[in-house]
């Protein structure tokens, strides 16, 4: 099918885009990379009356260091993130995960901010942002505010952005010392929506005991699913095979509600979560042992 008619505006600057947003509110649908929105429009699932194309706003495309954070402009493409040395050096979890996002052709156009603001429960970027406690900068004509990842994601395709705001920047804090990371997912074909995926972080103390863990899952709930009670149980423990198995059972058993699909029953998604939790914790633990 083909998209329904809409009015199209392509501002050159953020200031112009925010003025349009203030004027039109939720009627002004942002067009970022368009790799989720345009398919939805082609199917006429989405029929926005006004598109504000943000692609000409080059001031929103950057990756830079600020203090101990990596700051990424919302319109930075996923392939720019994938190829960036600062990301590789300072944000290994993000760097490891980006190649799992769809296909190379999609990542050439798809943006980090677009994926985060879209908040598809099956998407990789929200899971990584939540695991890393990233912060989101929302700007309006009248100012800006920072939103922690925990508050930004509010459920099925829903984020904490007001009708006057656009997401403009994402800040990823550096990993603490002695922290290992791992992202894994199971998809039927590379680039398809995964049936389950996990971002795991393990921080060890000087004696090798788990100081902090983080387990965040994709496609097992209405957004990125943070198994925080399971992660809290790992604190103060040695990361043994037994501890990893117990964590996997608890996370899959108590902390997720996968919906199931034609390709995977909820039980199978939980099975995947158990296996991925064990594997990802193992890798994250090994990496923590050799991290600085």
């Amino acid at each position, binding site marked *: 099918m083909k998209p329904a008619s809409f009015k199209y505006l392509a501002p050159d600057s953020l200031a112009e885009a925010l003025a349009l947003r203030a004027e039109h509110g939720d009627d002004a649908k942002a067009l970022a990379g368009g790799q989720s929105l345009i398919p939805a429009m082609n199917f006429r699932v989405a029929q926005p009356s006004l598109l504000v194309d943000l692609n000409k706003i080059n001031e929103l495309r950057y990756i830079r260091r600020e203090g101990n954070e990596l700051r990424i402009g919302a319109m930075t493409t996923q392939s720019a993130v994938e190829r960036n040395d600062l990301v590789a050096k300072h944000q290994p979890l993000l760097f490891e995960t980006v190649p799992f996002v769809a296909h190379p052709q999609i990542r*050439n156009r798809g943006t980090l901010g677009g994926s985060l603001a879209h908040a598809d429960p099956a998407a990789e970027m929200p899971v990584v942002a939540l695991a890393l406690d990233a912060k989101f900068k929302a700007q309006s004509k009248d100012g800006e505010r920072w939103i922690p990842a925990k508050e930004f994601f509010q459920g099925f395709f829903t984020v904490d952005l007001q009708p006057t705001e656009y997401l403009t920047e994402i800040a990823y804090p550096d990993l603490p010392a002695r922290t290992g990371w791992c992202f894994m997912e199971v998809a039927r074909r590379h680039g398809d929506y995964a049936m389950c995926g996990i971002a795991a972080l393990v921080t060890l103390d000087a004696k090798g005991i788990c100081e902090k863990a983080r387990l965040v899952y994709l496609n097992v709930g209405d957004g990125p699913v943070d198994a925080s009670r399971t992660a809290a149980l790992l604190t103060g423990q040695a990361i043994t095979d037994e501890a990893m198995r117990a964590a996997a059972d608890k996370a899959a058993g108590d902390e997720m509600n996968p919906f199931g699909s034609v390709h995977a029953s909820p039980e199978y998604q939980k099975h995947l979560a158990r296996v991925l939790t064990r594997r990802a914790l193992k890798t994250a633990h090994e990496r923590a042992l050799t991290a600085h």
Partner: protein
Amino acid sequence: MTDKAQFQFTLNGKEHTGEAEPRLLLVDYLRHEIGLTGSHVGCEHGVCGACTILMDGQAVRSCLMFAVQADGHDVRTVESLGTMDAMHPLQEAFREAHGLQCGFCTPGFLMTLVPYLEEHSNPSEDDIRHAISGNICRCTGYQHIVDAVLLAARKMNA
């Protein structure tokens, strides 16, 4: 009917000025308004890869872009690759290694692989399978496509 938008972009090396309703997809503009029918429309949601073109040298889906969004950019379609008498080495390799049967998916594969081979001159079979993971072929079973890419890499390195 909304107003038409005006735009200008470089198309296969030549300046192009055009206009279209904003909702017109780039692939439909290329095919129906300009007559460049090499880019194919398969799934219209970014999964099949048949519409892959180059924008500013990068492979993108022309079904997931509006024509008006090409404004100011450098667009290359499969028509820019070679002629019947002087084919691109990748096209030659597809012919020689039987990298196509019905040919519907081929333009998308070619436009995905042209920038890939420029960046990766000596890819392994596994690398190639990853590189073409965003293109679907319903005839070949992919093996001869992979063979063609390996052959093309050899030709382009020679």
